[in-house]
């Protein structure tokens, strides 16, 4: 377990006793997650015993783990209430917990396909997913993996898929909206904790304009059925869902998800490296300095958050040195390109994420404790803030003191670039507005960051007027 993972667990767990239950783990009566002595465990309750035994005895667990679709665990012996607890599991911990509203289109699509693949395999082994929450899937070694071992139940012949509605809300609806209408509609997942309501997805997706058989069935007709039967029980003696019908449903959902494509326009940020202020020499120099500093820090640094990562050039300097790197950008297309490159190259140490630093993910859900804020998931051993400060200070009117305070809360070390007012990028920003940023000077920058960080290294980037700093948080 990395230090940053331990920190996440520390923030995520609640309770005063030595066992601290994770605040996001309370809905499923089959068990829950808890932390003891900094280690994450999952309790399997006796009520879930027959399902858990079937998961193991049928060979489904082994099959899913061997395919990298389910998080592996080991059964451990801990003193627990034997009246309630059946088993205690020690699952492998993912290096960083991310949420669907922080994923690009392809990331959400891949998690949807992984969920359906798990369901198809589960059916082969006589089981079925009892939920299909996007929050149950995380990225491990670059690929989506189901982290909820208790998501399976014995398949009851004839019963409909209980997770069908949730799958449409968490995956199909948001993906269809991102693909057909606008990729930014994926952010609806921030507002709707249990996925985009089907009637809302149906309303935003004109079926005449974006007609697709699968979307028509699973979204438009689904919304109609929900309206029609919202306050009605299933009549007794109702038809059963045959196994063939069940398989047909899953297959059709898979086809629907697989067919969706996102063909975005080239954004300003996606072409940033090719038409920015950098001279090739300056860019190479910056790359060399960052790589040199990384080489000197590698043993001590295990996790990096790269803010304003664009398509991940500097993130890869870290990930290629075996450091787990979260590559953060606010532009959906940059994150999409970054993720596609990860997939093409089979990168395992890089996680691209969609985050706006001026409005980072907040704590959400019940009691604001179900989903962690970005700061709850830190601090990282190191953060990159390359070519970021001028965007925060000038585009977002953020005082340098507040910027320094933010970084001091999310990392232990910081590689940051100061971009002076003479820089072409800053000049462009000031072209269209009054310069009210008298305090935006290198001296003020060093003073404000010096309040919370101590300077370790400083290097000027030739031909650019920019300066790189390596800082360490003052303890």
């Amino acid at each position, binding site marked *: 377990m990395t230090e940053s993972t331990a920190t996440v667990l520390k923030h995520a767990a609640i309770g005063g006793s030595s066992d601290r239950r994770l605040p996001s783990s309370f809905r499923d009566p089959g068990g829950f997650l808890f932390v003891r002595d900094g280690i994450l465990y999952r309790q399997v309750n006796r009520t879930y015993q027959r399902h858990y035994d079937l998961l193991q005895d049928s060979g489904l667990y082994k099959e899913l783990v061997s395919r990298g679709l389910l998080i592996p665990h080991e059964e451990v012996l801990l003193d627990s209430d034997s009246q309630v607890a059946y088993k205690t599991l020690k699952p492998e911990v993912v290096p960083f917990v991310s949420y669907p509203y922080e994923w690009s289109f392809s990331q959400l699509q891949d998690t949807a396909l992984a969920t359906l693949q798990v369901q*198809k395999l589960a059916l082969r082994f006589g089981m079925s997913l009892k939920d299909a929450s996007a929050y149950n899937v995380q990225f491990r070694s670059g690929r989506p993996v189901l982290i909820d071992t208790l998501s399976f139940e014995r398949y009851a012949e004839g019963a409909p898929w209980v997770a069908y509605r949730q799958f449409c809300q968490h995956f199909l609806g948001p993906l269809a909206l991102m693909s057909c209408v606008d990729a930014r509609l994926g952010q609806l997942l921030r507002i709707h904790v249990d996925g985009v309501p089907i009637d809302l997805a149906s309303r935003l997706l004109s079926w005449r304009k974006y007609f697709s058989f699968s979307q028509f069935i699973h979204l438009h007709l689904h919304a109609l059925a929900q309206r029609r039967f919202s*306050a*009605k029980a299933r009549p007794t003696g*109702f038809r059963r869902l045959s196994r063939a*019908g069940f398989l047909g449903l899953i*297959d059709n959902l898979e086809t629907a998800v697989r067919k969706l494509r996102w063909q975005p326009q080239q954004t300003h940020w996606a072409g940033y490296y090719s038409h920015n202020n950098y001279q090739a020499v300056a860019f190479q120099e910056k790359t060399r300095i960052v790589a040199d500093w990384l080489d000197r820090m590698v043993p001590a640094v295990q996790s990096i958050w790269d803010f304003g990562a664009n398509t991940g050039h500097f993130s890869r300097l870290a990930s290629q040195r075996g450091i787990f790197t979260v590559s953060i950008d606010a532009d959906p297309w940059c994150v999409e390109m970054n993720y596609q490159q990860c997939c093409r190259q089979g990168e395992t140490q890089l996680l691209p994420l969609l985050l706006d630093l001026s409005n980072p993910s907040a704590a959400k859900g019940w009691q604001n404790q179900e989903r962690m804020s970005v700061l709850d998931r830190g601090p990282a051993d190191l953060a990159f803030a390359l070519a970021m400060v001028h965007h925060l200070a000038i585009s977002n009117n953020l005082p340098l003191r507040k910027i320094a305070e933010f970084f001091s809360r999310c990392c232990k070390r910081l590689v940051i670039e100061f971009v002076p007012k003479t820089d072409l990028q800053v000049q462009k920003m000031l072209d269209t507005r009054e310069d009210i940023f008298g305090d935006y000077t290198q001296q003020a920058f060093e003073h404000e960051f010096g309040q919370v960080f101590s300077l370790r290294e400083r290097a000027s980037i030739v031909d650019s007027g920019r300066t790189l700093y390596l800082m360490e948080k003052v303890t």
Partner: protein
Amino acid sequence: MKQRLAHAAVLITILAVCLCLFPTKAYAYLDPGAGSSILQLLIASLLGALYAAKLHWTRIKSFLAKCRGTSVPTRKKSRL
């Protein structure tokens, strides 16, 4: 596009009629997933048939080709 809309109209009519066939008086309040469950039951036969056709598509094509006296190249099996 016109053909697609025509297909859609037929489909809507059939499925809307199916939805309207269910009585409304005999039910009590249930969870909001009731509509989702009922929809699955309604569409199961159609999707099951499509899935079966997809699985046996090679055989169907071979059969049709045999009827027409031509041969069809074999296709790779689905991964799952």
